[in-house]
């Protein structure tokens, strides 16, 4: 019931914007900024969050005449945001703006420890998160823009292949193949980290 109300008012705002009321789009930003920022923050570095969120809303505005209203507006917006994040990485890879991070012995030790743990033994969240994020960032830097997006959507966010394909605007087969390959790549990278620790 509440969802219907939100949905109908989203559609109402879209109608107003399409009718020439440009300022009505501010309501779209206010209603969906948290949702958009949550997606953007996960996919792009902190210093690019605002710029990417801004770009996503501008793209959404320009694409508004193509919104048919058959599905939820937030879903339609999510796919624009994900594609904007993908474009951010494509641009960053082209201009070689990818930061190169290095891992230390501490990361290898952490990886060994986590792997040795039983699934129900939750690691200390605060301590663990820093290492996990650094290893994850290091591994993601080694992947292409497309592989990166697939790994994030399928492996880290738990989206199905179909959902990821819809968000990226790719075919299911493409996402499936990429998802398999990128997991293999991740496996190799993590093995490397683990072996580095043993070699020391």
């Amino acid at each position, binding site marked *: 019931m509440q969802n219907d109300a939100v949905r109908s008012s989203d559609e109402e705002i879209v109608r107003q914007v399409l009718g020439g009321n440009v300022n009505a789009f501010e309501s779209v930003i206010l209603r969906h900024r948290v949702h958009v920022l949550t997606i953007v923050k996960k996919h792009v570095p902190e210093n690019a969050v605002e710029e990417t969120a801004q770009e996503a809303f501008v793209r959404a505005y320009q694409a508004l005449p193509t919104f048919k209203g058959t599905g939820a507006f937030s879903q339609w917006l999510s796919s624009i945001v994900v594609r904007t994040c993908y474009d951010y990485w494509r641009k960053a890879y082209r201009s070689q703006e990818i930061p190169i991070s290095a891992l230390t012995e501490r990361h290898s030790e952490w990886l060994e420890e986590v792997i040795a743990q039983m699934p129900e033994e939750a690691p200390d969240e605060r301590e*663990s*998160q820093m290492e996990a994020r650094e290893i994850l960032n290091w591994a993601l830097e080694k992947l292409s823009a497309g592989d990166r997006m697939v790994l994030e959507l399928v*492996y880290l966010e738990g989206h199905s292949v179909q959902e990821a394909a819809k968000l990226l605007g790719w075919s299911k087969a493409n996402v499936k193949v990429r998802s398999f390959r990128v997991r293999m790549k991740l*496996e190799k990278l993590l093995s490397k980290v683990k072996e580095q620790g043993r070699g020391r």
Partner: protein
Amino acid sequence: MRSRISENESLKTAFRDAYSAKGREETRHEWQSQTMSRIRQIGPLKPVAGFWSAFESMVWRLAPVSCLLVLVLALFFVNMELDVDSDYLGTMAAEMEKPSLVEFFDLEG
């Protein structure tokens, strides 16, 4: 069978937690006003053109050109002098004229 590191449940959970924590970080909100000023610069949106509306706009765009073309061709044909002796059409007309006149006046013996 050797188990995969990336499929280890504890590691997967740690990675997923670290990844989703990124989405909860605080952000400033100045970008919103900048977004709106960019959108105002773009201005009101034009509706997506369907086939018929695109066709219609094309027809109206081509209408003056078509009118001009018709006018030029009309002037050209009005001013054109047809040389019957040398013209193929003239020859054809002459050939067709003979039997038809004969038939018309019933002069055939």
